[in-house]
């Protein structure tokens, strides 16, 4: 079982950033850094920092909601390497309820995740899809199936405990 836990203030900061309009991209993207711990039932991931992708790191590509350049990918890889962090690619689907990864998301993550796993193979890395009130996450790692594993429970802690997934 894989759990992801973070402060509600961090979740709110991510949502606020991801909902800002971009000059040309349909969506925004960021990276969530997590510390990873082993627990008897599996893994516990603790979100501690969100890094927004700068406006000029986006590429014009109408086939996807947002595409970023190699510098942005290196930013994520650097976070994994130097902070020994589990790094999540984060974006938002503008609806209420439980979000899912689109086919485009799934395809893109299959290409992106090996970058993070290769620089920091001791950690799980993943994709976090937020909605306006819930979230979905999937992780990849050397010990996991190549198609990734769903995060079982995502919670935010602040004014109460919100179960996001």
């Amino acid at each position, binding site marked *: 079982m894989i759990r992801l836990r973070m*402060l509600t203030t*961090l979740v709110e900061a991510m949502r606020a950033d991801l909902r800002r309009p971009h000059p040309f991209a349909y969506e925004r993207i960021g990276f969530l850094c997590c510390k990873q711990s082993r627990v*008897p039932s599996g893994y516990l991931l603790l979100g*501690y*920092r969100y890094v927004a992708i700068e406006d000029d790191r986006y590429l014009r590509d109408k086939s996807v909601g947002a595409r970023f350049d190699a510098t942005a990918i290196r930013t994520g890889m650097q976070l994994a390497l130097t902070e020994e962090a589990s790094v999540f690619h984060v974006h938002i689907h503008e609806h209420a309820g439980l979000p899912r990864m689109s086919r485009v998301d799934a395809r893109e993550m299959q290409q992106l995740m090996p970058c993070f796993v290769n620089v920091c193979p001791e950690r799980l890395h993943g994709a976090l899809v937020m909605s306006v009130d819930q979230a979905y996450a999937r992780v990849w790692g050397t010990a996991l199936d190549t198609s990734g594993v769903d995060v079982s*429970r995502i919670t935010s802690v*602040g*004014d*109460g*405990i919100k179960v996001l997934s």
Partner: protein
Amino acid sequence: MTDQYTRQSFLGSKSAELLQNATIAIVGLGGGGSHVAQQLAHVGIGRVLLFDPDRLELSNLNRLIGGTAADVGARAEKVEIARRMFVAINPAAEVHTYAVQWQLAADALREADVVISCLDSYAARQDLEVSVRRFLTPLIDIGMDVHLVNEQPHMTGQVILSVPGGPCFRCLGFLTDENLRQEAELYGAAGGRPQVVWSNGVLASVAVGLVVELLTGWQRRRFRAEYLHFDANEHVITHSPRLEYAPKQCTHFAADFVGEPVL
């Protein structure tokens, strides 16, 4: 929602599911923790982690819920007494017991959505809060003591909620260098602290109420901390004024102070 929980359906349409899917840890299964365990079983918590290295003694029977004279004879582990009580009320629950100091099973404690501290000393509370804050886990502390006021026993207690990001026990003035120092000076000389079943029950009930509120949000209240003072002689619970003067954000634990310490 099953018939078992229809009388608490006002907690919200998803409350039974939220409580069923939650993991709650109780550290200390004595007079306070045993009450907490019993009530968590009744409200429908689906998974509990019970930590206590001690076995039942005759002097515990005045207050330990679920304990029997036969358990004293058998020197039963307190966690096993709590487990037996929990599954008798809620057979579907997943109960994990750790008959050791919680530090020796710290990886298990990390799974908890909420930790309830039913420990005796300030130092032990400090150790527990430092650990659970690193894993972004709300901590609820309950405790009581008896002091002589004008040569009359006066029972007091507290229920404190410490939520990561919000004020901690030190921010709230509950833990201070002075009370830790005084406790250290008395180490080994304090003897058994006075404890009675009814005041422990009040404090445990308030703690369980906070757990249910944290998980279900049924009051739609926004709160980052709670500090309730119990005057057990007068049977009155009040908000501690310390809550009003505490900083809104913790000044002792940084928000990115998470995960296992790197040594």
